[in-house]
């Protein structure tokens, strides 16, 4: 899909508001989101945050179901490697989602739609940047149609 055809989609569908689902680790990224909020940083409202106890709690089913049921982009955010509240959870996240990121790309999901990143509780700024970036990328790509469950309605 080239950028031009995407712009067309957006032209035709001016209403397109990307829906992003962000799985955030309770101890770092969720607090990072809080900080972004209390610091009054701008990040888009159409990001649905789902709080998880650890980034390694997110499994592949969550991500696929999000895409099936309406997400245009999915983010998984956890503590930086070394800072896991449970010591080792995010090291497992790192391995698992390295493979899953590649696998999703391999079955045709644009890599801009699915992001994993490390955001600490002190990184309100980074939280806002990561969210703004994915929103922009997904906006350019247009609505997600891949993996969509045919029975899904807005």
């Amino acid at each position, binding site marked *: *899909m080239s950028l031009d055809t995407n712009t067309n989609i957006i032209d035709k569908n001016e209403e397109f508001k990307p829906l992003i689902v962000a799985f955030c680790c309770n101890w770092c990224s969720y607090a990072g989101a809080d900080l972004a909020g209390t610091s009054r940083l701008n990040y888009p409202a159409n990001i649905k945050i789902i709080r998880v106890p650890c980034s390694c709690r997110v499994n*592949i*089913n969550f991500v*696929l*179901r999000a*895409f*099936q049921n309406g997400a245009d982009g999915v983010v998984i955010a956890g503590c930086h*490697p*070394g800072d896991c509240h449970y010591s*080792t959870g995010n*090291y*497992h996240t*790192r*391995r*698992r*989602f*390295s*493979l*899953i*990121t*590649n*696998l*999703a*790309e*391999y*079955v*045709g*999901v*644009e*890599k801009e739609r699915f*992001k*994993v*990143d*490390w955001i600490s509780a002190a990184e309100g700024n980074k939280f806002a940047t990561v969210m703004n970036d994915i929103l922009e990328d997904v906006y350019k790509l247009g609505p997600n149609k*891949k*993996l*969509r*469950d*045919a*029975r*899904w309605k807005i």
Partner: protein
Amino acid sequence: MENITKKIRAVAKQALINKEIDKILGWKKGDLWSESYPVFITKPEDADSLIWDSFCINNLSKYLIKELPKYDKIGIFIKGCDSTSFNQLLKDNRINRENVVLYGIPCEGMVDPEKVKKIMLNDRVTRVKKSENGFTLTNKNTSKDVLGEEIKYDKCLTCTSPNPVVYDQLLGDVVNNNVNREDRFKGVEEIESMTPDERYNFWKGEFQRCLRCNACRDICPACSCVKCVFDNSDAEISGKAKTEGEDTFFHIVRAYHVAGRCVDCGECARICPAGIPLDKLNRKIIKDINEVYGEFNAGLDSTTPAPLVTFKLEDADTFSKQGGK
């Protein structure tokens, strides 16, 4: 092959007579030239029905999960790919090594009846026999020589472990099939070089033929969960709807569940009635593991921890800008 058949019968009979084993898992000939079935034998006199030919494709090791609780000691014949499966079952704690006697058979590759039928469909093949540099297909009136590459299973053409990697006794001479380990990734590379839309359409075309028969799971030595998520309605991932999203969901989850444990035996792709190239999904994961975390071949032994149950502090990742450092 006749030699090995003789050896198989002899060891089986002897072991059963001496009560070294209670049951033996092997193959026997079916009604058609193309059929060699798994057979379970407990009586010494039945050992003469055992065979070894170019159609003993079935992997017997997974039967051990169900058979071992019923017997103290089971003997089993295993080819190269069956032996890696055996190791994987050991690693997953599904079977006990002490309760099994392994008779290893070096494998020169099995014949795909579908490929034979394509060559000689209307000529009613009655026999496929190994010849010096290939096979001889025979029917009532004529015979035809073909090369092994023409009629062997795809999975056998890229097989990286024709010789059993674990056994108690080896029947037959070690074989060398000169396969380059990297060759098996060619199909994956082709898909990787497509655009995202092409890739999606390719897989959509494949996945939509899926019958959700679960044969790929049932035959897989790495898929041995007592209760599979796809059978567990409480897991809420067993959507049965025949929609594009569910098909893709099933396939990604299946492939990911065997990540780091798939021994690349190729059985899932062989058994799939819809001809979906599942090997190209599994091998993508194997290729990525090799590239990101170092070469790993599941099933080569039964002790090295699988890549997804372990980690290193200095691991790289494939998603962050700094590569995870």
